[in-house]
């Protein structure tokens, strides 16, 4: 009994006396809290999730394993294999192609892991009931969604930048150690814009899939809906798109190149376009089993990507704004 009474009995009256000060402290702002501080809180929540640590470990561990395998294959390749496999591998371990190698890895593994993270993060707001706390505290529904979107964008940017930085480090240390020759970056010119553009394209791809997870988590009001939705889209497009593209290639004029723009897979094209269109050659010589498709114009790819993002945010906002908070 006394837990409450002992501690609070003498406090009630003084607390009440100081009430006006506190009410001033709780800003009378229309939004309750600024968008940036809300997004910062969302990032704290993402960072503190036990799942975030596991997924980050998987992302970094996977990259380390991939680099390890590449080094092993390069070192052990002899004869013709040294030319066919060793050369392209060394290029991918050397700056600047090492950047796109890290980008490709992030484009695949990062998308999967961030989809899981975003799906559980957004979905658990419904499972824990914490979404109603924000609404009760005066945070507008749209404002709360904007904070989540901003947090996901920052998370995608940080992951993309971090992974590409790792690729740069590998390219400037491991590549030369194995005999590679890093290409010099011209001190002036578009090269310095191409690298951020490439990082941005990778980040946008991650962001898009986290938005797909956000949409499905909002639709289904659960973590499983968010994760399954994003991964479902990913699987369907990875399986269905090649078939779809192949059929379009055979049946439509112009090789059906435009058909490829109907799924979010186009973002991979944006990454590809950013890698190819610029003074730096970020793409290395193709490996033997690699099929290289023509990359679309960067602007075209980015515009399609942004359209997808806007549509997903818009649909999520419609759901959030119209529905009652009953969980």
């Amino acid at each position, binding site marked *: *009994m*006394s*837990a*409450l*009474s*002992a*501690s*609070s*009995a003498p*406090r*009630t*009256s003084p*607390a*009440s006396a*100081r*009430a006006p000060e*506190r*009410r001033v*402290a*709780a*800003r*009378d*702002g*229309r*939004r*309750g*809290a600024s968008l940036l*501080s*809300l997004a910062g*809180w969302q990032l704290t*929540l993402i960072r*503190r*999730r*036990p799942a975030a640590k596991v997924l980050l470990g998987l992302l970094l561990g996977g990259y380390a394993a991939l680099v390890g395998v590449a080094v092993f294959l390069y070192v052990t390749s002899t004869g013709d294999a040294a030319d066919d496999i060793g050369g392209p591998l060394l290029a991918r371990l050397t700056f600047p192609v090492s950047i796109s190698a890290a980008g490709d890895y992030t484009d695949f593994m990062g998308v999967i892991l961030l989809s899981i993270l975003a799906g559980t993060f957004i979905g658990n707001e419904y499972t*824990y*009931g*914490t979404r*109603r*706390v*924000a*609404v*009760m*505290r*005066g*945070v*507008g*529904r749209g404002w709360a969604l904007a904070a989540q979107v901003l947090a996901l964008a920052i998370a995608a940017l940080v992951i993309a930048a971090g992974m590409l930085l790792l690729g740069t480090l590998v390219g400037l240390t491991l590549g030369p150690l194995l005999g590679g020759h890093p290409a010099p970056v011209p001190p002036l010119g578009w090269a310095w814009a191409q690298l951020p553009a490439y990082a941005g394209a990778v980040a946008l791809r991650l962001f898009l899939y986290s938005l797909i997870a956000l949409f499905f988590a909002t639709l289904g009001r659960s973590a499983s809906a968010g994760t399954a939705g994003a991964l479902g889209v990913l699987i369907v497009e990875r399986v269905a798109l090649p078939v779809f593209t192949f059929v379009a290639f055979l049946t439509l004029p112009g090789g059906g190149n435009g058909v490829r723009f109907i799924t979010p897979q186009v973002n991979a094209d944006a990454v590809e376009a950013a890698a190819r269109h610029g003074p730096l050659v970020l793409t290395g010589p193709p490996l033997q089993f690699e099929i290289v498709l023509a990359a679309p114009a960067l602007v075209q790819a980015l515009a399609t990507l942004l359209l997808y993002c806007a549509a997903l945010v818009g649909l999520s906002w419609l759901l959030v704004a119209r529905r*009652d*908070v*009953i969980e």
Partner: protein
Amino acid sequence: MGSASAAATYQPQRAIDEFLLRTEGLTKRYGQRTVVDGLNLEVRRGDVFGLLGPNGSGKTTTLRMLLSLVRPTSGRIEVFGRSATHPAQLREAASRIGALVEQPAFYPYLGGEENLTGVALLSGMPRGRATRERIREALAQVGLAARGRDAYRTYSLGMKQRLGIAAALLTDPELLVLDEPTNGLDPAGMVDVRALVERLARAGKTIVLASHLLHEVQHLCTRVAILKDGRLLAQGPVSDLATGVEAIEISFARPEELPRALAAVQTARASGLSWLGAASFAVPEAGGHAPPGGWCLLVNAPADRAPEIARLLAARDLFPTAMRPREAGLERIFLALTGESTAEAGTTPPEPSQPSRPFMITTRAMKGDVS
């Protein structure tokens, strides 16, 4: 009743008539189903306002509408004298309202203190020492100071409920909305929370308390609203509501006199005695005279009509051994208004040969008699 009138002393003298919260024709429909139907509530500054109703009566939906979680289908909400029917309108007042609706909602992987930091941020409180101190103070207020750094998932049900109350108190709100605040608490925890609510009320907070625990509401609340099927059945001070359900317990020396007495009262009522309410057999209240057979006659009528009832019975050669007014507790008011069944009253004649089994009779005898 005693405790309810004691609770009435909480009411501060200042601005007693100022409405802090008001609804007009508040309605919520889900498809064809009406969950809340034309609700007119009035909560004055300083009230400890009880929202009572059986499960599914619309209490929580009402609270959700008041907190802008659920949009009303129609009707109007006014908070702090300003319209708050649309969520955007309530946002301005949000920092002046603290709420605990249903289960507390927190992140299980964060500590209590961190969770409250998030609530503070959502409330627009700035980061810094003052906020940290306020968080510790709120934790201390609910007895969680020592466990503030522990992860929420390690908390017991009662501790989670307390953290929910701490979150509601964080901005030192003028209006506190508590939905079943003692849910999940052990008896000691319940006493603690009730004591806290009493202290907050004494400090001038206005509190809206939804509960199905009648004794809790009777003990804490100055005014109550009783809901059933989304409709408001009654609203006002507990003492005012009680006037319609005054009753007199009448005991007889022989159990076989009870059916005759019941018939006499029912005949008199049918003949047009407007002050005479329904009559039923009942178990005497604890502490009352225990008649032979364990039953008494319970007549809904003002206590000052007891001599007239005695005369009415005497005319039929029925002479009670005892007559005493029965206290119109909130439970009786609630049962009378909602028509919920009770295991203590009935019109089926007691079985004189089985006086030891009085609790077997269950009816809806009081339905509609006093509304």
